[in-house]
């Protein structure tokens, strides 16, 4: 009786092991599959032309920012598709603000274009999917003029007043952006996507008043270095 039980246990163990062997692929099988998939994707990559078309895009975040606050930007871009892998991109925008601070009685007004140029890289394994995951960078530049209005300042010691306003003060800004984002095909040529951006100032000329407050395309001084876009993209 005891011998029979042991035999049953051994038989069951062998049966379960065999089943597991058929279900779980061996490491050798996995690497074979991966290699086959790699080969398929490589052949697919090789078979498609370098130039895969281009798309135009418009950012919605800047529009919302402009609608709900006193600064924001209109931004659109053109993106080339090279082998579904590399995406050289040009983005052009118009940044505007007309801000008045009632506490300090200071008004700041500017409206100027800006431009960004850079490349996105699709880092998904399957580059030809309807989803894309990008990382990339931008170099951005704007040259702008701003008006700063403030009532004349009363001198607390000597008395009298001194003017503290400036019109058409010239300034410029160079900055870089690190980009990470996704886009997905929604229907037909329409894609929707978002990108998160980390901005760093490279060089700047603040003009004659010591500082600038809002820089078209870059945003407010003292604001966060993080930004983002929500893009409506149309493949052409």
């Amino acid at each position, binding site marked *: 009786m005891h011998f029979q039980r042991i035999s049953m246990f051994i038989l069951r163990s062998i049966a379960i092991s065999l089943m597991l062997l058929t279900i779980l692929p061996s490491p050798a099988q996995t690497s074979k599959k991966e290699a086959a998939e790699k080969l398929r994707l490589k052949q697919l990559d090789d078979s498609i032309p370098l130039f895969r078309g281009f798309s135009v895009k418009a950012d919605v975040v800047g529009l919302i920012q402009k609608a709900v606050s006193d600064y924001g930007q209109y931004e659109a871009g053109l993106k080339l598709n090279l082998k579904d892998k590399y995406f050289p991109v040009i983005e052009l925008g118009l940044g505007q603000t007309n801000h008045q*601070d009632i506490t*300090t009685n200071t008004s700041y007004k500017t409206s100027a274009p800006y431009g960004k140029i850079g490349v996105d890289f699709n880092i998904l394994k399957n580059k030809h999917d309807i989803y894309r995951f990008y990382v990339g960078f931008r170099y951005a530049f704007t040259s702008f003029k701003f008006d700063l209005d403030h009532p004349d*300042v009363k001198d607390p010691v000597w008395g*009298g007043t001194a003017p503290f*306003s400036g019109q058409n003060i010239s300034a410029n800004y160079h900055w870089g952006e690190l980009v990470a984002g996704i886009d997905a095909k*929604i229907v037909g040529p329409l894609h929707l996507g978002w990108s998160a951006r980390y901005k760093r100032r490279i060089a700047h000329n603040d003009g004659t008043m010591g500082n600038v407050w809002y820089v078209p395309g870059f*945003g407010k001084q003292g604001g966060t270095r993080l930004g983002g876009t929500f893009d409506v993209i149309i493949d052409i």
Partner: protein
Amino acid sequence: MRQVRHHQKSLVAMLFTMLVMASCSSVDCPLNNTVSANFQLEGNVTKLTDVLTISTLLHNGNDSILLNQLQSAQKFSLPMSYGQDEDVLFFQTGTIKDTVWIAKENHPHFVSVDCGVNFFHTVTGIRYTRNALDSIVINQKEITYDALPTHFYVYFKEYRY
């Protein structure tokens, strides 16, 4: 279809997160918002034995005291006028009086719409009478929020009685 809906939901969530991130900001007004010229005694007299009183000529033509009877003066700070091209200072040591004229350019200095305003200065020249004073030298011509630099070295005569 389900996948697209899920993706659209995550896009909306990301958009909201980005808007919240983009709305973060801080006010970076300078902690030290006074602009003063720093003077230091140099030469043979680095510490005055007489009390030092400094007054100035106001915008309306009256005098006003800026520094009242400072004892054992070695260094001191004085405000600068916001808009005058030249500040006139009267240095009185004991009974002796000297007049100092500081010529300067005034630069409105803007930090942010959230902060107060102030003026920076560039000293372009200095003249003085030589009763108790021997000379005054411009060491740092830019006068800003930076409180550390000594802008003027003041040399008093050793034997002034």
